[in-house]
């Protein structure tokens, strides 16, 4: 069975079904991250001190425990990957498949850089015995950044599919393939967008 309106816009919505589907998914993601973010705010304003006691020391600022320079680097990495992602779509729109490969490869590489930096950060916490069970601050830190990290992994898998096996579609149906990269980009930019809120509120406040 042929899925309708994968390329042409549906007359009633004005967009193709794939794009509308991804936007609906992203709307649900707003509620998922928004719910957890709300939980963070309420835990925080209800706490007598924040981050509070970690490893037997009383901390007054999250930046005393978390590694701000590494997180700043990761913010730049993710923003950079958003640019390479949108450039991979623009390359296809300009019929430059060679450049698409280059930009998509860079997006995947930057995604891995983000995860490696995150792994260093987590490793640093684990080596001090700072685990989610330690206190509310570390629990919400691991839940929010962990869930975000899982989204990065998911995005990398999708991008890798479009970099290699999925790229065959460029030869058979270039318009549909370009659409696919645009909507894969929507997801990737959303992951960037979540981090834009997580970074200052968790690390810097």
């Amino acid at each position: 069975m042929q899925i309708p309106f994968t390329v042409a816009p549906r007359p009633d919505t004005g967009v193709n079904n794939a794009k509308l589907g991804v936007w609906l998914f992203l709307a649900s993601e707003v509620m998922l991250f928004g719910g957890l973010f709300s939980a963070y705010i309420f835990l925080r304003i209800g706490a007598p001190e924040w981050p509070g006691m970690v490893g037997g020391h009383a901390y007054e600022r999250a930046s005393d425990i978390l590694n701000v320079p590494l997180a700043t680097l990761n913010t730049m990495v993710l923003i950079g990957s958003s640019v390479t992602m949108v450039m991979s779509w623009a390359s296809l729109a300009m019929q430059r498949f060679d450049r698409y490969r280059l930009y998509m490869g860079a997006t995947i590489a930057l995604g891995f850089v983000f995860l490696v930096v995150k792994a260093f950060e987590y490793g640093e916490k684990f080596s001090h015995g700072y685990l989610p069970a330690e206190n509310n601050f570390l629990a919400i830190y691991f839940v929010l950044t962990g869930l975000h990290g899982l989204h990065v992994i998911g995005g990398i898998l999708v991008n890798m599919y479009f970099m290699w096996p999925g790229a065959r579609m460029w030869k058979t149906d270039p318009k549909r393939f370009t659409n696919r990269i645009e909507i894969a980009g929507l997801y990737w930019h959303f992951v960037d967008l979540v981090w834009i809120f997580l970074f200052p509120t968790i690390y810097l406040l």
Partner: protein
Amino acid sequence: MSDTGHSIEEIKKHVRVYMFVFASLAVLTVVTVVVGYLELPFAPALIVALLIATVKAGLVAAYFMHLVSEEQIVRWLVWLSLGLLLAMFLILSVYYVDQGGTEIFGF
């Protein structure tokens, strides 16, 4: 025309905008970190952080996610999800204050 319905010239214009947005996001990230090191009290620090983050998120959504030129239905969907998020947050806030929470919101 390319296969996406945009002319090559149009896409080239888009690319220039993407580079400008990238530079703005990088500058705003530096501003966020500098403000973080100022160690402002919690309430103003939160407001400034959220304000800068909202501007950055707006740039990403408007240009990288093409919301600026997207169909009405998608824009409505975004506003709806943000409205529902705000409603959830307000309901939780009322419940929180009702349970003898804190005066952080000033009520």
